[in-house]
């Protein structure tokens, strides 16, 4: 990788200040995507601002409405959290399914959603559960946060501090993984929020998206057979050597059905 300047941030304010000084400064959380991209020279920042020493960005807190997860909390910490296992088990299951154990020990939730890889798992959880992203400047709903392939609503200098997940009545995530990379070829997150049903899909398109027709049908009747026959249009879906757009469209319905089965079974 190319040379860069490295600085450790002592607080979010300090990170924001340092982020403003570099020509092309980037934040470093766990680095499980960024370091790999820098090795391939796909990313060549002039400055890296390391967030790992900022204690206020790490940790999991439960309150009466749901769970707040700090931005640099690792996937392994989310998966092992007793609070999350108790209140939103689907979120713990999803975190346990990311990458492999070593990646989960380094990779962070904030890093994952800021990167917004089209095949990442967390975007499905945030949109499926109707989460809110808190930054050093504002609160952003998950529906507004993910804006396109590798794109988010984050402005220059904006730093994710935490993610708040409201507690659903029941929820589940099912994914069809690429057997080598473990990335989602299609992953469907279904949540019965108690105030309607949300269905969020990752891996299939350029960016996580909701399937409104499934949400409407499941809100009337939360049962697997309610979604099994809803076809998703293949028009804008991804196609690559692993799966055609038509196959991905088919998998969206299959994964939705299995997710509802799992959510109903508890």
């Amino acid at each position, binding site marked *: *990788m*190319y*040379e*860069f*300047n*490295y600085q*450790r941030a002592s607080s979010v304010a300090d990170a924001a200040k340092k982020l403003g000084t570099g020509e092309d400064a980037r934040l*470093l959380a766990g*680095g*499980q995507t960024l*370091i*790999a991209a*820098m*090795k391939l020279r796909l990313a060549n920042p002039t400055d*890296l601002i*390391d967030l*790992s*020493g900022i204690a206020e960005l790490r940790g999991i807190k439960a309150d009466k409405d749901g769970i707040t997860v700090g931005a640099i909390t690792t996937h*392994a910490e989310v998966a092992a959290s007793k609070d999350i296992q108790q209140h939103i088990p689907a979120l713990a299951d999803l975190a346990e399914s990311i*990458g*492999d*154990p*070593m*990646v989960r*020990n*380094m990779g962070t939730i904030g890093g994952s959603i800021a990167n917004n890889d089209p095949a990442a798992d967390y975007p499905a959880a945030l949109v499926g559960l109707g989460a809110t992203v808190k930054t050093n400047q504002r609160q952003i709903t998950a529906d507004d946060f993910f804006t396109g392939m590798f794109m988010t609503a984050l402005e220059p200098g904006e730093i994710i501090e935490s993610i708040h997940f409201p507690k659903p009545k029941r929820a589940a995530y099912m994914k069809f993984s690429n057997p*080598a*990379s*473990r990335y989602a070829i299609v992953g469907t997150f279904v949540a019965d929020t108690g105030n309607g049903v949300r269905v969020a899909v990752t891996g299939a398109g350029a960016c996580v998206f909701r399937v409104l027709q499934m949400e409407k049908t499941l809100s009337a009747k939360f049962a697997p057979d309610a979604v099994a026959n809803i076809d998703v249009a293949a028009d804008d879906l991804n196609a690559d050597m692993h799966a055609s757009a038509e196959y991905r469209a088919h998998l969206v319905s299959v994964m939705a059905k299995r997710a509802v089965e799992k959510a109903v079974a508890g």
Partner: protein
Amino acid sequence: MSVRLSMTVNGKPVNADVAPRTLLVDFLRDEMRLTGTHIGCDTAQCGACTIHIDGRAVKSCNMLAVQAEGSNITTIEGIAAPEDNMHPMQTAFREHHGLQCGYCTPGMVMGAIDLVQRHPDPDEAQIREGLEGNLCRCTGYHNIVKAVRAGATAMKSR
């Protein structure tokens, strides 16, 4: 630019000035001459470079040395107790022939110890799932799974 780095490696304090772009695996191999940690794919897929940071398995080819500031690192050279030649997991790999060419073995052993720390009595499915970040190019998985089972039992009676 160089950055001051302080950490503990296999129980010994280490202080060094490193270029920020130095990967942790390169620092361990080239500067500390701890060449038991291997570089296989260099793309964070194969797990040959697995080490422990503060007791958690990570891929040292996919992190910067400076990210290990203040941490406690254990490599394959540091897992055996001082009075033993080998860690029980290493002994289990030898007894069950859990290796063919041996290139992936240090990473397999480090990954397996982390797995057993999280699941003290893993079944075959948990072992196969738990080692999904470690690839064996010789495809010698069958004996690796047997070795990890035996290693887990041996670690309990340690």
